[in-house]
């Protein structure tokens, strides 16, 4: 990857934790001169940065701002920037809104010009801001902040927060507020005021607060961060009053930033872990099913250890990169068959246990669950899926429980069982090879078809990236899981799962956010997304162009909200009516969308529409070359529906 241009004064990316803490301390001590100190950190070598903060108009959305009447040297929102840096946040995604103009100004004039840098990522829609934070967190393993306007901004961002919540992903959301009526000047300020703004998203966020002082903000921010990063991960919201952001901090005021704790995820009870190990070791046909089990690279490594200790079949539901795609014990393609045959099923962070077992509650089968979802669940939105009776449900984080489980499995495995496991592993390895052969044969069918098959699409993409450090940023259900069937993926960052709640408009923002996190590692980020999804939020591509975020975005263009075509046709058939009109309201034709032109118009290199499969490889090759130079590129491919 080529060197990326950076604004002057910013330090290099990829700073280690130790380095970060050092600079965080400096930032904190820098704020000491303004009366701010991070708790437990020495106040030495102050490096004060003072900025004259213009009080922007409260009526900015109604017309010309009034003349500046005061200046100030230190303000609440500078302190908020320090707090965000203190917890390790590096980016804030936002589209502007005057209820957080104080914080906006602090980010760009204080956060972006001092270290460690807190960079503003400029967005086109709050839904994309949140989606960007969603995708980023799944790669970086920590939250990105996103600022949203009061009322209308949070309403725009709400669906994306639901996606993040259902996908168990941390997002540090901040929404502006004008709490005091005396501060609302004019018609629009009242339209943009709400007594309890976060109530809108309370059903699908982990926690929220509306701090009334800067000390309160610091405590709530730390609490929000801690909650969001304690499994099950999830988004939090802080409503931040305009006056709190914009008000001056009196000289001599001491503001404490609480110490950030090291967060230990909840591990399963030792006795329960022993019992799981006993069941798994004794089972003839155990099946391990993982959904969002591997939160980190360590989780992936532990998944492999557990499977290999048992020589047990693993089915990856693909909520995350839970298991290497070409590992001999990966039996994902045989999911239904193995679930029906298993005598013990271990579900790890499995949202839809019922779906995995196909609704069959076979007698004599030991069903076990380890899930942090049992520790935190709300009632209104029903993303907890159908209740499935299990024999043992451990409310704990699966990844945190795996070390003890692996150790216990090894301890309980006799030499006789080890011999049996070895034979089982050999048989499963053959099954994996057979599945791969079947997938390849299936992929060959219609190889030269037009529109291009999704198998060919995925094979052509892989051909261009397989020798790179690639990272796929999309879920693959709408591409029939061809990447999992045909590609070789071994590392945690190579796959991050899907939207969580299947809310359309996720991928453009999420893939740009993920690509931003990949950028500092020099990885080649790739996203394959539907045309309908892209039509929801094409502005995210502008963000990629504006911030020079390298990403290969391939449009799986079936010119429809294709899933719905199938549903509507089923309904028409059921009602014995015409079945040739299901495209109405579902097709994205007349006119066809030219995504290459759309992307080019907002600054991306683009190719397409590609209709001929023979032209797909060269088009992708050219686009990959652009991405490797550090820029985003889009290839529009006219594809089969699925």
């Amino acid at each position, binding site marked *: 990857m080529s060197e990326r241009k950076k604004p002057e004064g910013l330090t290099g990316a990829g700073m280690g934790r130790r380095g970060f803490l050092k600079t965080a301390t400096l930032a904190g001590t820098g704020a000491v001169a303004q009366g701010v100190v991070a708790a437990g950190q020495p106040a030495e070598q102050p490096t004060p940065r003072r900025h004259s903060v213009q009080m922007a108009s409260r009526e900015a959305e109604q017309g010309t701002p009034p003349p500046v009447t005061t200046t100030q040297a230190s303000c609440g929102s500078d302190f908020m920037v320090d707090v965000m840096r203190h917890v390790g946040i590096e980016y804030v995604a936002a589209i502007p809104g005057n209820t957080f103009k104080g914080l906006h100004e602090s980010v760009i004039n204080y956060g972006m010009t001092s270290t460690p840098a807190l960079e503003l990522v400029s967005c086109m829609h709050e839904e994309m801001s949140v989606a960007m934070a969603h995708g980023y967190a799944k790669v970086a393993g920590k939250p990105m902040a996103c600022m949203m306007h009061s009322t209308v901004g949070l309403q725009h961002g709400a669906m994306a927060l639901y996606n993040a919540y259902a996908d168990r992903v941390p997002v540090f959301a901040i929404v502006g507020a004008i709490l005091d009526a005396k501060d609302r000047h004019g018609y629009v300020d009242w339209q943009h005021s709400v007594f309890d703004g976060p109530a809108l998203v309370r059903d699908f966020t982990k926690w929220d607060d509306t701090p009334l002082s800067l000390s309160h903000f610091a405590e709530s921010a730390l609490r929000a961060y801690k909650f969001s990063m304690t499994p099950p991960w999830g988004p939090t919201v802080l409503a931040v009053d305009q006056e709190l952001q914009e008000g001056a901090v009196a000289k001599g005021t001491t503001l404490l930033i609480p110490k950030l704790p090291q967060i230990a995820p909840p591990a399963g009870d030792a006795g329960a872990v022993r019992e799981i190990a006993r069941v798994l070791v004794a089972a003839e046909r155990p099946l391990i099913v993982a959904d969002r089990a591997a939160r980190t690279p360590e989780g992936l490594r532990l998944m492999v250890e557990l499977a290999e200790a048992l020589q047990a079949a693993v089915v990856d539901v693909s909520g995350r990169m839970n298991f290497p795609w070409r590992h001999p014990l990966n039996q994902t393609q045989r999911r239904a068959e193995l679930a029906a045959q298993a005598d013990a099923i271990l579900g790890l962070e499995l949202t839809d246990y019922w779906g995995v077992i196909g609704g069959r509650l076979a007698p004599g089968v030991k069903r076990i669950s380890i899930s942090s979802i049992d520790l935190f669940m709300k009632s209104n939105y029903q993303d907890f899926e159908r209740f499935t009776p299990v024999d043992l449900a451990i409310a704990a984080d699966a990844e945190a429980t795996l070390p003890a489980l692996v150790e216990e499995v090894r301890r309980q495995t006799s030499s006789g069982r080890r011999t049996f496991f070895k034979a089982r592993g050999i048989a499963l390895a053959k099954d994996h090879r057979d599945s791969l052969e079947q997938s390849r044969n299936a992929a060959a069918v*219609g190889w030269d078809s037009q*529109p291009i098959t999704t198998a060919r699409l995925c094979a052509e993409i892989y051909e261009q990236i397989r020798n790179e450090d690639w990272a796929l940023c999309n879920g693959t259900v709408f591409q029939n899981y061809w990447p999992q069937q045909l590609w070789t993926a071994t590392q945690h960052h190579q796959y991050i799962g899907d939207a969580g709640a299947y809310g359309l408009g996720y991928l453009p923002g999420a893939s740009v956010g993920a690509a931003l996190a990949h950028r500092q590692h020099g990885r080649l980020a790739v996203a394959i997304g539907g045309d309908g999804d892209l039509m929801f939020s094409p502005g995210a591509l502008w963000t990629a162009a504006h911030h020079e975020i390298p990403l290969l975005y391939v449009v799986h263009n079936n010119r429809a909200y294709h899933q719905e075509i199938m549903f509507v046709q089923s309904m028409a058939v059921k009602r014995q009516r015409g079945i040739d009109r299901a495209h109405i309201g579902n097709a994205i034709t007349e006119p066809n969308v030219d995504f290459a032109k759309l992307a080019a118009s907002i600054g991306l290199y683009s190719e397409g529409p590609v209709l001929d499969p023979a032209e797909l490889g060269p088009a992708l090759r050219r686009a990959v070359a652009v991405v490797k130079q550090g820029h985003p590129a889009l290839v529009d491919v006219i594809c089969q529906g699925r």
Partner: protein
Amino acid sequence: MQTFFSRLVAAAVAALVVFGSPGAVADEQRSNATEGKRLFLADGCYQCHGTTGAGGGTAGPHLAPDPLPLEAVKAKLRTASGRMPVYTAAVISDAQIAAIVAYLQGIPRGKAAKDIPLLNH
């Protein structure tokens, strides 16, 4: 009395009248397949099974090449289960099913996976 040969000629002529010439049969098959393709695309089979019957993974299995025999396809359509809707005669006639099968039968077998480099990494 007609000779055996003359009876054979007469039978052949009669057969041509009834069934058409070999060329006409081929034309009719082509015409049927064309209509089948139109139905396949217009009536939504392609949505789950792909425009060439290659299949759509979880959405629908592959239908071609080597489609099921006509009677099997008819049975599938009339008594479908799961995601596949039931297509009654009121929605699609036996003749139309026959046309669709003719289209699927005409789809050529493509390259084998072993002959496609991209599928052999």
